């Protein structure tokens, strides 16, 4: 049932790199372990550091199918696991002739045909390599965590009318969270944990260069340093990697090749999204 996809930590790093994700040593080791031990991986960190991207890249690197469950307030079993298509069932009953025995219909309407499979069940039943991405777990209600506990520890789902469905092939599970609330201890215990933070200067530069190849190396270096200086300020929302990349794209689009005061001042809106952060950055970095 457990079929590891990666041979070694170096293999993870290489294949993720080929899929366009520059993983550092800690990230590749953790992904390797998640794959090898067959445990779900919970990824936490600020917005825009590449949590979802990691799951997508792993799917691409292992040529697995990516099944995504986006969590939101009010997500329930019917949206996450499975649901009976009662409209179709109703039609089936109405369409049946009077002389059909009730027992037949009864068995008939709870057949595969009337089952609507939602992401969790789909991932478990998929015979091919699968990456299951449960995105923004912290947005879902606490009850959903209970549901996940059952699915993630045994990789099986019990449907009363059909019996227990066990995974033929364990999907690789990634959960992401922005930490807007603490996830329960029980859920954390069942998962491996990876805290993704802003990368160090060298890696961030490499990421910018690989995502925006048009940007000159010198400019990328200056850009990364400036972003790091911004992160050191006490801002409401620190700029993320995604925003650094956006900034690089902006500069390329504007045809600018140096990062001086004037440029920073006019394009600061790309990286800082609060008016108060703007003012703060402008005074502290002396942009006027």
């Amino acid at each position, binding site marked *: 049932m457990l079929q590891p996809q990666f041979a*070694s*930590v170096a293999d993870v790093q290489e294949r993720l790199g080929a899929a366009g994700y520059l993983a550092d*040593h*800690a990230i590749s*080791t*953790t992904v*390797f*372990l*998640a794959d*090898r*031990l067959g*445990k779900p*991986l919970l990824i*936490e*960190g600020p917005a825009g550091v590449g949590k979802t991207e990691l799951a997508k890249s792993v799917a691409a690197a292992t040529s697995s199918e990516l099944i995504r469950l986006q969590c939101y307030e009010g997500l329930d079993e019917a949206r996450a696991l499975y649901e009976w298509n*009662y*409209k179709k069932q*109703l039609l089936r009953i109405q369409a049946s002739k009077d002389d059909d025995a009730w027992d037949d219909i009864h068995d008939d309407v709870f057949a595969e045909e009337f089952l609507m499979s939602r992401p969790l069940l789909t991932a478990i039943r998929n015979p091919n390599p699968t990456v299951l991405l449960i995105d923004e777990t*912290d947005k879902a*209600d*606490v009850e959903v965590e209970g549901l996940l506990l059952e699915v993630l520890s045994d990789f099986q789902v019990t449907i009363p009318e059909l019996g227990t469905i066990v995974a033929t092939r364990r999907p690789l599970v990634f959960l992401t969270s922005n*930490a*807007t*609330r*603490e996830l329960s*201890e029980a859920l*954390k*215990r069942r998962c*491996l*944990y*990876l*805290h993704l*933070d802003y990368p160090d*200067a060298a890696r961030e530069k490499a990421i910018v260069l690989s995502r925006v190849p048009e940007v000159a190396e010198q400019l990328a270096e*200056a850009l990364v*340093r*400036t972003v*790091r*200086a911004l992160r*050191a300020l*006490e801002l*409401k929302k620190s700029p993320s990697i995604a925003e650094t990349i956006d900034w690089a794209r902006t500069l390329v689009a504007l045809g600018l090749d140096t990062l*001086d*005061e004037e440029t*920073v001042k006019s394009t600061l809106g790309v990286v800082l999204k*609060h*008016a*108060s*952060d703007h*003012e*703060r950055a402008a005074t*502290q*970095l*002396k*942009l006027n």
Partner: protein
Amino acid sequence: MRAATGLLDREIAFLDALRTAGLTVSLAEVLDSTRAMGAIDLLDREALRAAFAACVLKRPAHRTTFDTLFDLWFPAVTGDPSQVDGPTGEAAEGQGEPLDTEAYRDLLRDLLMDGDEESMRRFARQVVQGLGRADTAPGRQSWFSYRVLRQLSPETLMASLLEAMLKGQDRGGLAEKVARQTITERIKAFQEMVEAEVRRRLAEDRGVEQISKTAVQPLAEQVDFLRASRNDMAELRRQVFPLARRLATRLTARRRLGKTGKLDFRRTVRASLATGGVPLVTHHKPHKPHKPELVVLCDVSGSVAGFAHFTLMLAYALSEQFTKVRAFAFIDTCDEVTRFFTPGGDVADALARMSSEAKLVWFDGHSDYGHSIEKFDEDYPDAVGPRTSLLILGDARNNYRATGAQTLKKLVARSRHAYWLNPEPQAYWGSGDSVTGAYEDLIEMVEVRNAVQLEEFVQRLLPQ
């Protein structure tokens, strides 16, 4: 398990040290990390660190503790580093001979300019070996990081490093700020490396268990407000917004889970269409949330300013949870400071402006609770009403002056709720010039020494 027994013992002892330091490491997680050790290349130290982190480290706040302890229990080198590393760079000529301080400083300058972590770490080992040792008693030696850092004093290299990094660009602008930030980061990293190396040497002399007990620093959210250093306060301020967001999410979730309101007829009928007109599920209107009005009256005199600032910041970050927030500050007289806190504005700036612009001193600039409370009641009689939650922040150290207890009693009676948050440990209340005794009977006084206690209090303040 294929892991050797010696390694297994080491692992268990390490996980145990983590528990002592306050992390929760369950048995399931111990099993996971043992399994993980079997899966990775054990000679790869960083992989081992990542593996342990993935299995047992479940909160980012514990990262520093984890790293400190990992470095102690699984050191990169043992004993005298020159045996392992070989001498660094130019030191090669000396072949392990300790260099003089100037030579070390030159080396450090080059390393800081270059910023390569591995060579910096090697240099830290070498420099601790060379400068960090001192005799504490006849025949006894110990290792000290301050000896190293004082002799090298990396901060004094700033000027020449800046010069080199800016290469003649304009001083005083963005470029300087960015360069300065880069250098500060590297210096800080170097200082941490030296400290880690000193801990490692100490642990070799005295045993790992001994050192790991003292090496771990408390988490920022558990640091006492009254003893917080500037670094702690900065760290706490950074946590205000995440904390407020977490609190707000939890509060809305609690509200939603509470009793639902009246039947929503329209939605119920609409939903019943799907089941052939039979209303199987009823829908209800959500309750209108109760939002209290918050009035904060805080002592901002030197001793408790840090606490007041943090609490004010939190109150403003949470302002969506209240219909209205009004803030008043006092030292020995009282002034309204709400005007400094504009919505969406920068709270840190507001605090700075508050201290310079608000009229808080009337007589001598020492805390006077009596006069401040009287003045508050006199100047702002409409501030406290039947919908108001009144929060008073302060240590009630009144410099032996009048307490104004009668006025406070009236204020409390007029408000819906009233709480006094005191950053001092409860055991010290009433000692010396603390007049908590006079207030305790009139108002509920709560001990709020750190961010964790404050979080608990805020949850209690917002009902439903």
